[in-house]
């Protein structure tokens, strides 16, 4: 009897202990190790429709960019993601904010008093030259864009709910941005379905840079014999000098410079993804966006068809102004780009990925976009990762894009001064674009390449060629190195 009671007592204790130990549930860490992605890219473009020079002119631009993304496991349930971007560019178009070379003009440090002495008083030539087809040496030729983002995520115990809060800051010579956001993801249906909601706000402002002739005109109160314009002849369309104190000479639009420099953006992000089978899944998502403030770019010139044309530089080049043969004359702007103070954007994206077999995956993407400025677009992209060995994967891709123009767009000399809003930025015109890509990635899931505790997980090289129907061509090469800290 005693023995039976002892055995029963032992069994009871075991059951109690088992109950207690079952209360301790294993919880996988949200992120096991610190991960780092280091991206580098080089971008090069060319074209003949520079927006800074009113829709004609050199669009050459080069950009070197670098981005570092770090994901840190702060605790079992928390992850901190930070990323920092530096992007340095040189641009022929931006340089022509002040296209005039020769004697000191505008804000650039091109002071050269000797050139003033070279001014020719025979009214046919000028030491001051400019052309939309050649980059000038002004300070606006180059710039650096800096951006910092931080995102903090909390994972629920069952890992089915993720809460995030983010902040961002960005700065370049004519623009500053500060933003923040919240996001929430809910995974359900045995992790087959996922809903995400998020919001971002950006409180940005311009430090506006204007075409040099417009800026100087308003700063001198319209005096065409002061500052930049001193001793510089203004030619009419026939190459005759104008009387700068009279009515038949150049005067820009009377709208004046920007007063409200704020530019605010509010984004609502909604996403849904679903597993359809063991090899097929899709996601549907949108970033509903509302913008207010100064939404135009004050650097970008506009020329009116119903206003006479006036020039500074070599009058002999006026007849060939729109040709690349023009080496020495520049048309003074009638105004800079003006656009509505509000914009509502509705993009809707769809991704469908299909695992064909161990060698091939099909990644497809489609986006429909519309906004209240009249622009509609369709984007379709197909990427086909091909695993050619256990470590190497090729990424051939093709992207097609088509858009209609915003209702405020017209080409060079296509606008009328009676309109309230106008742009000659060809990024907002109607066009189609083709993009061809090829990438190669090496993946080492065991991170055998190591320096100290840093293991290289993958190296990805990606090349893309982009061609637009209105003449812009671009090439971009990117690399991404992924590391883990063990």
């Amino acid at each position, binding site marked *: 009897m005693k023995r039976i009671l002892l055995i029963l007592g032992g069994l009871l204790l075991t059951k109690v202990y088992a109950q207690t130990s079952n209360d301790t549930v294993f919880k996988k860490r949200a992120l096991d190790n610190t991960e780092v992605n280091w991206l580098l890219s080089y971008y090069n473009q060319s074209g003949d429709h520079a927006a800074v020079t009113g829709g004609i002119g050199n669009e050459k631009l080069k950009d070197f960019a670098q981005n570092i993304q770090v994901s840190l496991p702060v605790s079992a349930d928390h992850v901190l993601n930070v990323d920092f971007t530096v992007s340095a560019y040189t641009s022929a178009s931006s340089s022509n904010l002040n296209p005039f070379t020769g004697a000191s003009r505008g804000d650039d440090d091109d002071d050269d008093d000797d050139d003033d002495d070279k001014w020719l008083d025979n009214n046919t030539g000028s030491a001051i030259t400019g052309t939309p087809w050649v980059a000038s040496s002004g300070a606006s030729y180059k710039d650096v864009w800096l951006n910092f983002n931080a995102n903090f995520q909390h994972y629920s115990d069952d890992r089915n709910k993720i809460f995030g809060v983010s902040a961002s800051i960005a700065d370049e010579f004519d623009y500053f941005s500060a933003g923040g956001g919240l996001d929430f993801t809910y995974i359900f249906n045995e992790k087959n379905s996922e809903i995400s909601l998020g919001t971002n706000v950006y409180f*940005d402002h311009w430090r506006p840079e204007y075409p040099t002739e417009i800026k100087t005109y308003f700063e001198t109160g319209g005096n065409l014999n002061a500052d930049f314009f001193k001793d510089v002849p203004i030619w009419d369309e026939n190459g005759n000098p104008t009387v700068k104190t009279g009515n038949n000479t150049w005067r820009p639009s009377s709208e004046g410079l920007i007063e409200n420099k704020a530019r605010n953006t509010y984004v609502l992000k909604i996403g849904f993804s679903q597993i359809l089978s063991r090899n097929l899944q899709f996601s549907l998502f949108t970033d509903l966006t509302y913008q207010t403030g100064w939404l135009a770019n004050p650097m970008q010139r506009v020329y009116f068809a119903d206003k006479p044309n006036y020039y500074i530089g070599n009058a002999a080049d006026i007849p060939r102004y729109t040709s690349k043969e023009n080496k020495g004359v520049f048309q003074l702007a009638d105004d800079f780009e003006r656009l509505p103070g509000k914009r509502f954007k509705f993009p809707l994206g769809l991704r469908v990925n299909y695992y064909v077999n161990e060698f091939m995956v099909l990644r497809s993407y489609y986006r429909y976009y519309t906004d209240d400025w009249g622009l509609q677009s369709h984007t379709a992209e197909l990427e086909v990762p091909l695993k050619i060995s256990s470590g190497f*994967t090729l990424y051939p891709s093709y992207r097609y894009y088509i858009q209609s123009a915003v209702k405020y767009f017209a080409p060079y000399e296509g606008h009328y001064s009676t309109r309230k809003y106008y742009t000659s930025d060809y990024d907002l015109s109607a066009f189609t674009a083709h993009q061809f890509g090829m990438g190669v990635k090496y993946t080492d899931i065991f991170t055998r390449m190591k320096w100290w505790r840093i293991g290289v997980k993958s190296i990805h090289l990606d090349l893309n060629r982009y061609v637009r129907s209105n003449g812009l061509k671009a090439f971009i090469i990117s690399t991404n190195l992924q590391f883990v800290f063990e």
Partner: protein
Amino acid sequence: MINLQNMKKLWISALILSSLLSSCVAVKPYEQVNLNDPDMVLVSIKAKKFVTTFQTYREGASGASGGKSGGGCGCN
């Protein structure tokens, strides 16, 4: 002007489709090996971050691409 009727229809269709699809038979976690392949992620590949950035600058459309929607830069 955005065609609000078309937008409404698009959204309602998307919601109905999503709710129908979410009632499909679930794939168990141990059956999701292929779905967990790194190339099956439902986001843009990291190496294409700057490609998405230049598209935002050079095209009028933005958003729903993993890139910017217009804030944070003086872009479209």
